[in-house]
């Protein structure tokens, strides 16, 4: 093979490969809008916060509100529930992390770290089981506080049997994590904004 022919082949190879690369990159770029369109759109993201007045919620009462399509548990805990949650050592927990968007990611799952602003009577967290997303049932499960044989606080997920304690921490069953606490803040003494 002569040198001239050889360089010719190499140049063709180069053009061939370069064209292929440009084509592949272009296709990948063109694909992205088609993939990304499935992500939450602007109207979904716009619904990202709700406000709530906690004053009407009596002690021992829990309500469920909807935020970004998901249930949020808002519970006014009794002293028995708070005491039960505080009595648990973090070493006993399945998931030792607080899972609270309002504290540091590495903070331990103490009862204090599961609420915001030291208002330990109000437990506010997602009502979405961290296993596969069912809504757990309140005042139920093996880790509720027992007062006169009545269960207070604690959650049980009927789908595959996960038990959460009175601070919403996973204690038993297939769920891997504590119920997450969403970003929220107190606007006044009793009014909160979630999101």
């Amino acid at each position, binding site marked *: 093979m002569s040198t001239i022919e050889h360089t010719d082949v190499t140049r063709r190879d180069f053009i061939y490969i370069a064209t292929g690369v440009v084509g592949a990159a272009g296709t990948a770029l063109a694909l992205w809008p088609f*993939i990304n369109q*499935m*992500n*939450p*759109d602007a109207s*979904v993201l716009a619904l990202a916060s709700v406000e709530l007045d906690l004053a009407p919620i009596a002690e021992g009462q829990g309500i*469920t509100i*909807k935020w*970004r*399509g*998901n*249930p949020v548990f808002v519970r006014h805990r009794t002293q028995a529930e708070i005491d039960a949650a505080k009595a648990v050592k973090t070493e006993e927990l399945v998931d030792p992390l607080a899972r609270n968007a309002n504290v540091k990611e590495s903070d331990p799952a103490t009862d204090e770290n599961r609420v915001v602003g030291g208002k330990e009577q109000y437990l506010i967290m997602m*009502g*979405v089981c961290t*296993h*596969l*997303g*069912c*809504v757990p049932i309140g005042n139920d499960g*093996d880790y509720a506080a027992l007062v006169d044989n009545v269960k207070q606080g604690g959650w049980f*997920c*009927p*789908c*595959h*049997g996960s038990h959460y304690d009175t601070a919403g921490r996973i204690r038993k069953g*297939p*769920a*891997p994590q504590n119920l997450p606490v969403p970003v929220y803040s107190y606007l006044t003494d009793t009014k909160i904004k979630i999101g």
Partner: protein
Amino acid sequence: MSGHSNYQPTTRFGKWLHERLPIMELIQAQGMDFPTPRNLNYWWTFGGILATMLVVQILTGVVLAMHYTPHVDLAFNSVEHIMRDVNYGWLIRYMHANGASMFFIAVYIHIFRGMYYGSYKAPREVLWMIGVVIYLIMMATAFMGYVLPWGQMSFWGAKVITNLFSAIPFVGDAITTWLWGGFSIDNPTLNRFFSLHYLLPFVLAAAVGLHIWALHVPGNNNPTGISVKSSQDTLPFHPYYTMKDLFAIVAFLVFYMAWVFYSPNYLGHAINYDPANPLVTPAHIVPEWYYLPFYAILRAIPDKLGGVIAMFASILILFFLPWLDRSPLRSFKYRPLSRVFFWIFVVVCVILGFAGSGLPDNYFLSHHAAPADGGFHFTYKIVGQLATFWYFFHFLVIIPLVSKIERTEKAPASITEAVLAKAHDHAA
């Protein structure tokens, strides 16, 4: 592919078309003259039954889509509107809903048929693997279809199944958010599921085309598992098998219509006539019957990611079956030990189905909860775990081992010999 035809266009138009698009030759060669083993039994009719059911699902589905509204506020009511107001809407919807179940009954029989007669073995590995792909597409299609009526089971089934992806490390949550188009199952989810539910059956039809192409290269397997040796071993597909298939299809349609007319809701869940409520999970959620064995496998593993991996692995393992079975013979007719384990496997799959149907901590086949005292109780969960173990043990240990060590029975020299021996037995 067109080697089997002696097609000669007879009319002037026929000649004209043949020179431009030899489609009549293709039809005659592949759909009529195609040499087919003369000894196929009724288990071979399920391919035709499946093709029929695909057509039925597409026809009824297109009609439903004319009256259905994919919006969270309207979907449930539009299905009720189909049931009450649309002329024959109840019939079309019951045909579609029960048609999905019939489709799965047929596909399970079809798959077990392939397993029993060794149809997955060389030279039909690609045919078998396309079949597994078809099965996967079917599952995805039926899953998304079940979400459309937007009842409680629609919603929570979708939530639990899409949440499976959240088990994937690091990117799991991003994937579920992407699948949902939001932070939960909501209107964007319903919309895209409708779009894909409409699309996938046509992808399925294309995959069926490939499946048949891959079938027509080596030709059909047959109950003896012995390859075709001469033209004596075969019959033309038409009219011999067109008629046999047609008879089986009609019989199957009778069975299907018995469900549609006399028990249209038996295979469904009453709670799906409750509109979807994102704030309340029903006390007991279960998938449709055809997913139950896989649901049992999912629940058998106490770890979230582990359960998801086991569930997907239980289907993906089918892709490897052609290489797990190392026997020189195909058909289990002449493989006595494989035959025994085949039937054990079938029973285990049925047990898995039951294991997936109840609350994990209830006693198996009962509505009573076992006490949570840490002792051994014969619960749905335990049964599911034992059966899951056997499922994988069957593929990973029994098949490779048994296919290697078993003493096979003597197979006849040819299909014709097998057929004549049988005829002789009958005459005697």
